[in-house]
């Protein structure tokens, strides 16, 4: 060992000796003090049972973030799920604090009335001296004083409490939230998704990945198009990240009518079973494909009307007219050939003179009459 190394060692020893004489702990002693090994019995006693705050979605003692586009129903569904647990006495509403920072005055009043009816705390900015910037301070205090245990905070919406686009802010919020969770608190954050969807047409979370990464559990809510009555909407919660026994997918419907109260809207929420949501999704996919093929269908229709009825001639003509690849036109011709208009068929093949196959457009009204007869 060189002279420099020896000097450094001497210095370190001197630092430790100085700390000892002043009654301070050395770094190694501090590490030993922080060790929780040997405290597992005590910690297990404090451990929260696997109780759902929001059935199948959010567990007690975890940080769950629910992402959805505006007007998808994230507040509505969160409140409905909360109501179920409160009214079945699975949850003590005195520990539930819903921070409603994303509402107008009427909305605040309506939701506070529900809070009084079901029994939980509603907090709103600029009411009774509350300010959104206080929430992180309160979470730190709750964690430090040991009062966090059992406390459930729901933040609606998260962007009112931290800047989701700013990495440092999100990361700091993550550190505070984790200390609150480690002390036995529960955090549920409602956040927005991006305007743009991913390649599969699914919503993606908005902002940096820090919040999603730091959360124990993340769900993304997407609207499911089609199939229901005109004023009904269907949505699906898809799990994006899990720590615990939460659902992979869970679906709901609700009915939005003009002039209805918020309480009526909440009462209209229903949980959808897998079969029903499967049917809705296939209907939506059917509609999407039909919309996608609409230009091609009208081009084929024009060709047939103009007397171009053989497969090869239709493919050639439509390709020239629309610029769509012949392979794709051939695929569509096959996929939309049949007798059932409702199944997406738009033409049928008949054997004409000299045993030639001829394409004929389907008439939806004539065909339904024929089927009925």
């Amino acid at each position, binding site marked *: 060992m060189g002279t420099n190394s020896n000097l450094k060692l001497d210095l370190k020893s001197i630092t430790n000796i100085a700390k000892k004489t002043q009654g301070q702990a050395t770094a190694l002693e501090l590490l030993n003090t922080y060790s929780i090994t040997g405290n597992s019995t005590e910690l297990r006693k404090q451990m929260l049972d696997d*109780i759902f705050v929001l059935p199948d979605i959010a567990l007690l003692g975890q940080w769950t973030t629910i992402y959805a586009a505006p007007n998808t129903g994230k507040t509505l569904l969160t409140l409905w799920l909360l109501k179920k647990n409160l009214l079945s*006495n*699975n*949850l*003590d*509403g*005195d520990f*539930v604090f819903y921070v409603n920072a994303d509402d107008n005055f009427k909305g605040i009043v309506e939701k506070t009335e529900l*809070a*009084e*009816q*079901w*029994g*939980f*705390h509603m907090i709103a900015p600029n009411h009774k001296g509350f300010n959104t910037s206080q929430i992180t301070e309160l979470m730190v205090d709750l964690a*430090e*004083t*040991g*009062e966090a245990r059992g406390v459930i905070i729901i933040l609606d919406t998260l962007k009112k409490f931290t800047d989701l686009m700013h990495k440092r802010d999100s990361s700091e919020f993550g550190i505070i939230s984790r200390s609150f969770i480690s002390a036995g608190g529960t955090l549920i954050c409602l956040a927005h998704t991006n305007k743009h969807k991913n390649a599969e047409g699914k919503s993606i979370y908005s902002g940096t990945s820090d919040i999603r990464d730091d959360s124990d559990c993340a769900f993304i809510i997407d609207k499911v198009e089609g199939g229901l009555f005109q004023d009904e909407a269907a949505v699906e919660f898809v799990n994006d990240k899990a720590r615990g026994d939460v659902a992979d997918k869970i679906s709901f419907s609700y009915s939005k009518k003009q002039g209805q109260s918020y309480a009526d809207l909440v009462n209209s929420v229903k949980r959808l079973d897998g079969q029903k949501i499967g049917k809705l999704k296939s209907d939506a996919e059917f509609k999407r494909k039909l919309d996608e093929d609409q230009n091609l269908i009208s081009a084929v229709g024009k060709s047939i009307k103009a007397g171009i009825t053989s497969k090869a001639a239709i493919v050639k003509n439509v390709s020239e007219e629309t610029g769509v690849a012949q392979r794709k036109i051939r695929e569509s011709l096959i996929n939309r050939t049949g007798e059932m208009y409702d199944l997406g068929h738009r033409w049928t093949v008949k054997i004409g003179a000299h045993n030639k196959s001829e394409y004929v457009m389907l008439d939806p009204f004539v065909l339904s009459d024929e089927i009925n007869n």
Partner: protein
Amino acid sequence: MRKLSYVPGLDTEFCEGGNSYKFSRIDYDPLSDECIARYRRLKLFENTSGLVEEARIPSFRHCEIFEKITYGYDHSSSWWLLLDNIKIPFFMIEPYGEYRFDIDGLKYHEVPNNIAPYGGVSIAREGKIRVPDTTAYLFVKTAHYRHLLDVMARLEARAKLEPYFNSVTAKDRRNAKKRVRVEKGLIVFGGYNGD
């Protein structure tokens, strides 16, 4: 407002045993008509409301209620409504006279006077009276109001079937003697008389 009765994170909850309602307000003279009627009402209150007494102190969740009550604070008792997975704190005070409370964060209802356990009568009015001089107020935190309404519905319905507050029958007296015999050694006669 009174000083906080505990410091979160510093004090230990339930570190003292405390005295039960029965010990404090009945056992000092268990064979007197006043205490026989009070025992009958206490049991009626417990059985009808479904509430279970909390005698241990400090109970932090009850502290949150009573530290907000700044007057009419007499003959207090702490109670739990035990539900499947949760327990709801209730706090009762039974002062002489009548009060009105408007306390932010708390809700209360009056317990029917023929079920309210204490049923105190001022010395000047002792005799054959049908209404006590004390009033029992049952408090909960606002978030628990629907539970208070449930309890009150049960108490109100039962009150219609019960006699006036200080009714004592010969059967009640016989039962009191039997009970005291069974509890011999557990009762401190002539001891603590209320708070």
